[in-house]
């Protein structure tokens, strides 16, 4: 498969009031088109920073990031982001939240009715069509996150970037949304880069798991390819020897070799 996102020797240094903080060092990563990659690591290891770099929300101190043969210099709708806390605008209805994105991307070329149909279709895709005219405060956390995913998918991004999208949800809702995400990605064949700290989530969803070492100056420690055929079923996989082995591999990396050391503050 051809490389779609390419990160070359990316370095990230933050200059804060406390001084210089070297967050990421020597990041090299290629993501193929249609691939589902998760970034996993302990908190503070810079996985969200790496995602923000791919999103273009922050620019690297050094190195280059390329998406679809173009350098990433700014955020753009071809790289949609699903934020950890959904970030829906509370004064707009679910549909208007999605429409805001759709209008910006397709507004120049399509009629109002077509834009509306797109917003509706995106909400239907995540099974939220029934709540189109509700405001975010009227729906549950899981539903908000679905609308956030709908907003990201509605603009037909080349890449879907997700920053711990299910981190704030309870375990059952999370499992449910993971299953739905698997179905949606199978249908849309999206390229996905997702940040997570949940080992099961990573193994269940990914084609490859990128495991990061602890910060400061975190880098990619190891990459595991998950050769499990799709569609995947969480109940069947629980007893699958390969699944158990992958899971152990990730756990081993995170807790045995790169156990989280609390830094003195």
């Amino acid at each position, binding site marked *: 498969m051809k490389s779609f996102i390419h990160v070359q020797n990316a370095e990230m240094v933050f200059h804060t009031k406390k001084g210089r903080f070297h967050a990421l060092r020597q990041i090299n990563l290629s993501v193929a088109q249609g691939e589902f990659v998760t970034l996993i690591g302990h908190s503070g290891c810079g996985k969200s920073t790496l995602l923000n770099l791919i*999103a273009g*929300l922050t620019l690297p101190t050094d190195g280059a990031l390329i998406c679809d043969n173009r350098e990433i210099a*700014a*955020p*753009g*709708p071809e*790289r*949609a*982001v699903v*934020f950890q*806390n*959904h*970030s*829906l*605008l*509370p*004064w*707009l*209805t679910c549909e*208007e939240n999605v429409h*805001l*994105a759709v209008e*910006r*991307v397709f507004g120049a070329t399509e009629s*109002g009715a077509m834009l*509306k149909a797109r917003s509706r279709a995106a909400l239907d895709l995540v099974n939220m069509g029934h709540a189109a*005219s*509700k*405001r*975010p*405060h*009227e729906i549950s956390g899981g539903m*908000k996150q679905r609308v956030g995913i709908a907003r990201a998918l509605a*603009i037909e991004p080349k890449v879907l970037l997700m920053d711990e999208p299910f981190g704030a949800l309870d375990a059952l809702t999370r499992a449910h949304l993971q299953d739905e995400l698997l179905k949606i990605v199978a249908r849309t064949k999206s390229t996905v880069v997702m940040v997570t700290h949940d080992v099961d989530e990573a193994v269940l969803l990914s084609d490859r798991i990128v495991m990061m070492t602890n910060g400061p100056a975190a880098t990619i420690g190891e990459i595991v390819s998950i050769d499990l055929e799709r569609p995947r079923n969480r109940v069947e996989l629980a007893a699958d020897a390969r699944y158990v082995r992958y899971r152990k591999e990730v756990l081993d990396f995170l807790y045995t070799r790169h156990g989280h050391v609390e830094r003195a503050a």
Partner: protein
Amino acid sequence: MVSAVFHSPLDASKEADAAADKPKTAVATPSATARPARTPFDGRGFLLKVIPPVAGIAALIGIWALLTMKGGAFPTPADTLKEAVALFSDPFYSRGPNDQGIGWNILFSLQRVAVGFGLAALVGIPLGFMIGRFGFLSRMVSPLIGLLRPVSPLAWLPIGLLVFKAANPAAIWTIFICSIWPMIINTAAGVQRVPADYLNVARVLNLSEWNVITKILFPAVLPYMLTGVRLSVGTAWLVIVAAEMLTGGVGIGFWVWDEWNNLNVTHILIAIFLIGTVGLLLEWALVSIARRFTYDDV
């Protein structure tokens, strides 16, 4: 109402949903009255809401009546009421510049407040936006605001008289300078507190500057801005009475001073009630506007 503002008029089905939203907002605001059409009349709740304020007013009038029972310069509640009825029966007469009906006095004061406050809003709100948006500007003007804000309204009056050489613009100037601070400060605070996530959404979607302002910044800042407006109007109404006492002309403040010179204490008491009532109405109007534009943080 708020739903209607943001709904596209194309979709009629949304109107129905917007109507369905309303009970929810009614629940969120305790003082909003329940809709009698659906919920049965809550007699007990109504009494509990009405009795305490009525008792408070009754206690005030009772104490007042007790204290004035033996006579003296201070008028009794009954005298005051009688005088008030006479006064309000002809609120809009005009016998020369120094003898006009109570209605005219109130309207002239309100007009000054409106002009002074309007100018303050026109300057203060955009200034607040700029201060909130640019850190340099914020650090530049915050010592100035800190220095000027605590200054008593009346200290500004001579400056106005000096510059404008007339009483009326000087009074308006005083209102302007006193009511501008809450709007600047609250608008700036609102802009500074727009969640970074919303702005990140705007960056990822690459929204136009116009969309960022109308769809994200303005709705996010509006509740803060309205708080500023409410505080400003309250201040303006406080200041006008004092300013008019000094500048003269037609207005409720001047009227109070005039009646003091006539030793008509009854009229002064009526004026105090009236000023309080108008202030209360202004506050109530702005609170109910603000409530419509406040969103639950999600």
